[in-house]
């Protein structure tokens, strides 16, 4: 790519000169474009997961309904969980990381742009591989948690579980690679003066989440490798007849699975920690505490996994220890909520859509957090685990928490990404429909669960008192779906004809608002010098003399080649050894091509 001259007076005036065409997107190593790719892919999978959810809700609208047969239903709830958590919410979060972190820290890109592209392609190929199972004999149907030994070749014949293993291995590797990249980026590429205790909250949460990813995914990787060997080569890891223990899977899975909850929710916390100060026009209350509480949540997240396993019979001592640690997490989480409210307190709050979603998050997450504390109590949890009460809880956390936070971020940063506002009237309709829809969907589930409705059941009999709750939930799901359609319409319409936005449409405090909307390829004409925590509010940024020339990395097709090799390798595990070898060859060739690629073409 050509060198961009930066001898222009204002930040961001060196206009974007992206090459066009599909090939330019495939070979891009630009963090903003990769962010958009993540975002769009995540949104598509969000719709897929949403359709899966809607089908399930229709099936459950009435007792004894026969809209779906059990095998289909079981595939749907398995894929809904996997899709929403790993293929929708995480990638949308990754979209935000990619687009925003370099902008927020005043960098031109991430530390390893090509590695960043590789992460995206690994995620995408993994996601496609997993979903292709629908075409090749059926998706996995053992739940996203895939408890052994139901997943053995004996109890899960067919290839559904193999697609689960291989797809998630690819996508998981992508996540680890991305997280490593962001750790280095945030620690190493901050603008001068931007010490860690001045870094915007969203970037801070990205750092915490990145550490969680690199530490949580390996145990899961090992677990699925064990499972793969059990299924393909007859090893005995989870085979009770050979002395293996299915509970070991549960441990390894939840050592990953619980941090994963924070991996999806902390970015949303980071987002609203940016949105609330901007729209309250007050700095974040108690910044260090909000940072430390995030770090603490991230750390404690590794010590609580067995609270998913209270009914396994680990004994009262183990249950007590894990209950205690789990309750501890409530403290930093509660503290965060207080700090958000305190930030609003005494402010001059503007209720733009982004702010509505942020406040919605506080409302909903408080409820999800409180029911979470109930699960932390093992005796209470014994009545609640595996029921709709948990379904209610986790959706209050993941939809009411994470998704509302992500929506908030979309309204907040859409002007930065596109140079146009999302429509406010449609946005408000989107918010209220969502808020009503999800409460109508998930609140009745608390009652259904407490009254004895287990989850993951494709039907329920009349007469247990579940009918009304389920019908209400289904209606609520319909309203939520409507809300999503409003959002999509808003997205498409505003992209074309939304009101133009300037560099800093909301008067935000952080560095990304100092460059044009959309930012130029190289983000900043000058590396900013930062002097305070809210650089754009307190005269805290200084622009040094213009840099003479700015080199941006060239596009590269090696990342997609390496990822394609990995995909071939994974697919080969289902097809045969020659394909595996081909995949390895492509990967190795790709890595060498990558290593010897010249910087400037």
């Amino acid at each position: 790519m050509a060198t961009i001259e930066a001898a222009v007076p204002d930040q961001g005036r060196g206009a974007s000169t992206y090459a066009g065409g599909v090939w330019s997107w495939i070979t891009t190593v630009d963090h903003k474009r990769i962010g958009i790719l993540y975002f769009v892919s995540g949104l598509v999978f969000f719709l897929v997961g949403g359709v899966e959810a809607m089908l399930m809700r229709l099936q459950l609208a009435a007792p004894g309904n026969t809209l779906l047969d059990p095998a289909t239903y079981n595939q749907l709830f398995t894929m809904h969980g996997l899709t929403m958590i790993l293929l929708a919410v995480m990638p949308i979060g990754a979209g935000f990381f990619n687009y925003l972190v370099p902008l927020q820290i005043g960098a031109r890109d991430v530390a390893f742009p090509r590695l960043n592209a590789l992460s995206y392609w690994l995620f995408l190929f993994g996601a496609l591989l997993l979903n292709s199972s629908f075409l090749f004999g059926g998706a996995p149907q053992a739940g996203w948690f895939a408890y052994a030994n139901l997943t053995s070749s004996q109890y899960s014949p067919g290839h559904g579980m193999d697609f689960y293993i291989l797809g998630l291995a690819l996508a998981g590797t992508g996540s680890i690679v991305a997280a490593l990249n962001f750790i280095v980026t945030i620690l190493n590429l901050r603008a001068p003066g931007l010490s860690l205790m001045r870094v915007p909250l969203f970037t801070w949460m990205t750092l915490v989440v990145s550490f969680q990813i690199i530490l949580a995914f390996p145990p899961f990787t090992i677990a699925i490798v064990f499972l793969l060997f059990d299924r393909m080569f007859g090893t005995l890891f989870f085979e009770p007849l050979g002395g293996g223990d299915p509970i070991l899977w549960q441990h390894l899975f939840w050592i990953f699975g619980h941090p994963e909850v924070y991996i999806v929710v902390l970015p949303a916390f980071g987002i609203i920690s940016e949105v609330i100060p901007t729209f309250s026009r007050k700095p974040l209350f108690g910044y260090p505490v909000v940072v430390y509480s995030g770090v603490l949540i991230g750390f404690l997240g590794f010590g609580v996994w067995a609270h998913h396993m209270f009914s396994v019979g680990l004994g009262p001592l183990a249950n007590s220890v894990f209950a205690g640690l789990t309750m501890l997490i409530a403290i930093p989480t509660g503290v965060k909520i207080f700090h958000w409210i305190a930030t609003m307190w005494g402010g001059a709050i503007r209720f733009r859509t982004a702010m509505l979603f942020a406040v919605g998050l506080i409302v909903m997450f408080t409820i999800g957090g409180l029911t979470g504390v109930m699960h932390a109590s093992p005796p209470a949890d014994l009545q609640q685990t595996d029921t709709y009460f948990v379904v209610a809880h986790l959706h209050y956390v993941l939809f009411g928490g994470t998704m509302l936070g992500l929506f908030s971020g979309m309204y907040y940063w859409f002007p930065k990404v596109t140079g146009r506002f999302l429509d406010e009237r449609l946005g408000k309709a989107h918010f209220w429909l969502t808020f009503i829809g999800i409460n109508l969907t998930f609140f009745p589930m608390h009652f259904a669960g407490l009254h004895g409705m287990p989850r993951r059941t494709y039907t329920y009999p009349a007469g247990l008192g579940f009918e009304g709750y389920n019908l209400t939930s289904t209606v609520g799901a319909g309203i939520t779906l409507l809300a999503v359609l409003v959002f999509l319409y808003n997205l498409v319409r505003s992209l074309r004809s939304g009101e133009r936005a300037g560099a800093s449409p909301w008067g935000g405090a952080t560095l990304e608002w100092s460059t044009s909307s959309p930012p130029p390829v190289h983000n900043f004409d000058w590396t900013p010098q930062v002097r305070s925590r809210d650089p754009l509010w307190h005269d805290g940024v200084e622009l040094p003399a213009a840099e003479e020339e700015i080199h941006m990395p060239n596009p590269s097709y090696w990342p997609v080649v390496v990822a394609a090799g990995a995909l071939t390798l994974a697919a080969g595990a289902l097809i045969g050894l020659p394909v595996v070898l081909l995949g390895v060859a492509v990967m190795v060739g790709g890595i060498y091509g990558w290593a010897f690629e010249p910087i400037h073409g």
Partner: protein
Amino acid sequence: MERTNTGVPNEKMLMWAFIGSECMLFASLIATYLTYRGRSLVGPYPEDLLNIPFITVTTFVLLMSSLTMVLALSAVQRGDARGSRVFLLLTAVLGIIFVGGQAIEFSHFAGEGLGLSRNLFSSTFFLTTGFHGAHVTVGVIWLLSLWVLTMRGRLGPESSVKVEVAGLYWHFVDVVWIVLFTVIYLMSGS
């Protein structure tokens, strides 16, 4: 040297973060090995097959490869072309010997009827040491690639960070073996 906030080159920090991640990978393997210890329902059992003297030798070989690795880095940093070549190649060769030893061990086990799916010991043993062996193999390929670069005179002091990063990886693999040697072999009798 590029300028970063921390003063640590990006590549080096990437490798350390990756090593942190690898700690969890091997922790999961080791934890599995330990929880399944002594739970095999049928033989052969570890004490029947593990050849401590043989593995002690290959362990020693891998330990010494860490020494040659660190000497290789030192040579690269000093601009000592000959030293770089010799020590990089030596490290790779020691790695190959280690992996070869593992291959001999594996085939010996298979010959004694301890296939991959024989019992819990074989399942956990082969996957744990196999994961480690795969890491060593990747390291050997990496070192040989660097060695080729030195042969072409393309690995001077200015790019020593490449060798440093490879070295970190190599030492970590060695460190993992220090733990595995103890956990799998020396604690097998207790």
